[in-house]
């Protein structure tokens, strides 16, 4: 009995070991599988299927919700090949050797990218390839007679009272965005580390925060805006565009939501496609990233997410409605990058933020 069991177990083990031999050999030197880790709702998922069918690479696709989540997973040893961190996180990951430098020879479609999106502060040596970018500002419902043009709409008590009466305000539950916007409104840097400046921003926010109807930066574009739970919202342009796409109807052929970059300026961010340092499938990862940079694919990603692509080739192919959310040259000049904070400054920001959130 025992002998027969041993034989059985042995043969199963042998079969398992040899199973891989039977798999068909692949024509290209692409790997059989690719692990991709992206933000939720940040790609056209049919592209993944298209890639699988065209190149015979199985894609394992997972989502994260914040940069810190991605960072924590990678640090814990998660084995992903392609990731999409935001600007400051790219800088941090390069510093910690979590990202491999992409071989630009393998990504010829880089030629379609806007030069100013490729030369960035966070990735001067081009470890990564820009994927999508955006800016924060104010989304407003088209029924508003006078659209807002300044951050005052969110921070000036009179205006806050007015918009609250008209239908309510949503602000982002994001310390860099909300405090950053408040600092911009007061004429300070979005990366300020001056206690007095941050305290001014805090005092201003504490006066108006109880009036805000929502603190939502997670899903407002699909929940709050289309349902008209609010009349104006602190928003990223891509999310405002998504809300516009979702509310297109006969009465509103261009959707019900519009977006402005306040005259004081807005915060700019950009996600890049990167290959992890631990990836054993670097060539396949680069091949996949190159695939995403095909103009028609980049356009499909923009159309699905609402976010703008740095892909110049895709501009003519995207939904015309999205083009309205592309900042003009003059607006582009008013955007500022969010920079990482030193530990002490981070703590200061954190404490100020806790005060605002508990007071709001």
């Amino acid at each position, binding site marked *: 009995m025992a002998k027969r069991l041993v034989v059985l177990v042995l043969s199963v083990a042998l079969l398992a070991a040899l199973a891989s031999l039977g798999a068909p050999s692949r024509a290209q030197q692409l790997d059989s599988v690719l692990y991709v880790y992206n933000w939720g709702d940040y790609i056209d998922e049919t592209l993944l299927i298209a890639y699988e069918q065209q190149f015979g690479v199985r894609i394992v696709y997972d989502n994260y919700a914040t940069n*810190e*989540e991605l960072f924590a997973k990678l640090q814990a040893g998660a084995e992903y090949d392609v990731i999409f961190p935001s600007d400051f996180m790219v800088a941090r990951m390069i510093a910690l050797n979590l990202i491999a430098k992409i071989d630009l020879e393998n990504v010829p479609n880089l030629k379609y990218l806007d030069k100013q999106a490729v030369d960035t502060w966070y990735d001067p040596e081009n470890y990564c390839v820009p994927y999508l970018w955006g800016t924060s500002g104010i989304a407003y419902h088209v029924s508003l007679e006078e659209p807002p043009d300044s951050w005052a709409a969110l921070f000036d008590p009179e205006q806050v009272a007015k918009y609250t009466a008209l239908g309510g305000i949503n602000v982002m539950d994001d310390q860099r965005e909300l405090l950053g916007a408040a600092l911009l409104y007061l004429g300070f840097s979005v990366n300020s580390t001056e206690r007095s400046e941050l305290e001014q921003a805090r005092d201003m926010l504490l006066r108006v925060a109880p009036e805000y109807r929502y603190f939502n930066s997670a899903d407002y574009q699909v929940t709050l805006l289309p349902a008209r739970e609010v009349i104006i919202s602190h928003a990223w342009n891509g999310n405002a565009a998504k809300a516009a796409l979702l509310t297109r109807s006969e009465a509103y052929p261009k959707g019900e939501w519009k977006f402005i970059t306040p005259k004081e300026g807005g915060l700019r961010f950009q996600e890049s496609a990167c290959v992890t340092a631990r990836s054993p499938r670097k060539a396949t990862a680069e091949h996949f990233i190159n695939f995403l940079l095909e103009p028609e694919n980049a356009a499909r990603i923009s159309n699905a997410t609402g976010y703008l692509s740095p892909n110049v080739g895709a501009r003519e192919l995207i939904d015309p409605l999205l083009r309205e959310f592309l900042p003009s040259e003059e607006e582009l000049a008013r955007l500022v990058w969010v920079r990482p904070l030193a530990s002490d400054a981070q703590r200061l920001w954190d404490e100020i933020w806790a005060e605002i959130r*508990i007071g709001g």
Partner: protein
Amino acid sequence: MTTTISTGVRNRAAQAASSPERAGYAYQHRFERWAGWAMLVSALYGTALLVRVPLLGQKDFLPMEAALHRLAENLSMSSVAALLTAFSLADGWLSARLLRGAAVGRMAAARAWVGIALSLLYFAALRDFGGALLIGAHGGAVLALLSRNGGVILAYPSLVWLGVFFVLPLFGVLAASLGRTTELGLIDLSAPSLENYKRLLSPVGVSGLVYVNIFVRTVWIAFLTTAICLVIGYPFAFWIARQPERWRNIWLMLVMIPFWTNLLIRTYAWVIILRRDGALNSLLIDVLGVIGRPLDLLNTPFALLLGLVYGYLPFMVLPLYQSIERLDKRMIEAASDLYADPVRTFWRVIFPLTLPGVLAGSILVFIPAVGTYVVSNVLGGGRFFLVGNLLEQQFIGAGGDKAFGAAFGTVLTFLMLIATLIYFRLGRKVGYT
């Protein structure tokens, strides 16, 4: 090692059996044979890795494959192959001896300890948690079997579970709470201090003790949730318990059905009901015509409590039902025979007798309610900043100060631990647990 463990056990086994010597021997024999099977498994796994890693160069399928490739990059593929061959041969030989009933327990125990030590080394060098867990748990399992103690063997899986998923992380959090988060988001433990705990108790800006405030606020909301669940759940459980027997299960089933759906989805369902153009407002305006303009129901304390009570009510009803159902009806009859009115009967007889259920339900509702952040984000519209939200922000949000978050988590864990201990204390007093 083995002998010291086994002597005590042999006595126990001997006491339990009618014919001490023979029964004790049969016990040892069986468990050592099982250890032989465990060794066979590791020998086969080693062989499979030997075939797949050095020979075929595979790295995507079985646990440990990728890590062994990394090891090969640092050493050489031939040394990895030699290592695997040595282990497979040793384990194969041991398993053959053990399965034949030879007395090689000592050697097998030594091999098991090597496995445990190796798992630590392996994790330190290669950072492959799954592989380390496999090696270590295998070594532990062999040791448990060689102890010949049925109790240890039965408890072993849950000990591994508790150790890996509770004790280890708890110590990790405790250690992290003494460190400092660096600019790069790492935890620096070179100068451990209680700074993070001090920060918890220090006033911030113009708002006073912000963190204590968040804590008190959270406990208050969790308390309200528990109280409301109790007030709704008690009569409900009582009513179910008094239904004819075959209906009871159907009612209980109905209480549990919402659990088949994820809490997040159920919470979002409330958004659809409560929002301005949602189901409730359209019912009130269009169908009943009671109000003229939509009510703002979302992101009010009402919505938050509604979501929490809705989510956790079954945790209250089920233990309550159990203790009410077990209630001896003759006690109630005796009370009325002694001229107690219904109110008095309830407070003097029924309620004290069902107190175990009340306590169990309360603790089951209170603890998850303290840790909630989904409900406060979704139904509270982010307006209610609770402990769960603060923790979320420190670990996966823009706050990013993991060491501070760890300190907050540690305090929370200890307070919950105290609450649970009080519960067990009270439970003993009312004859429960």
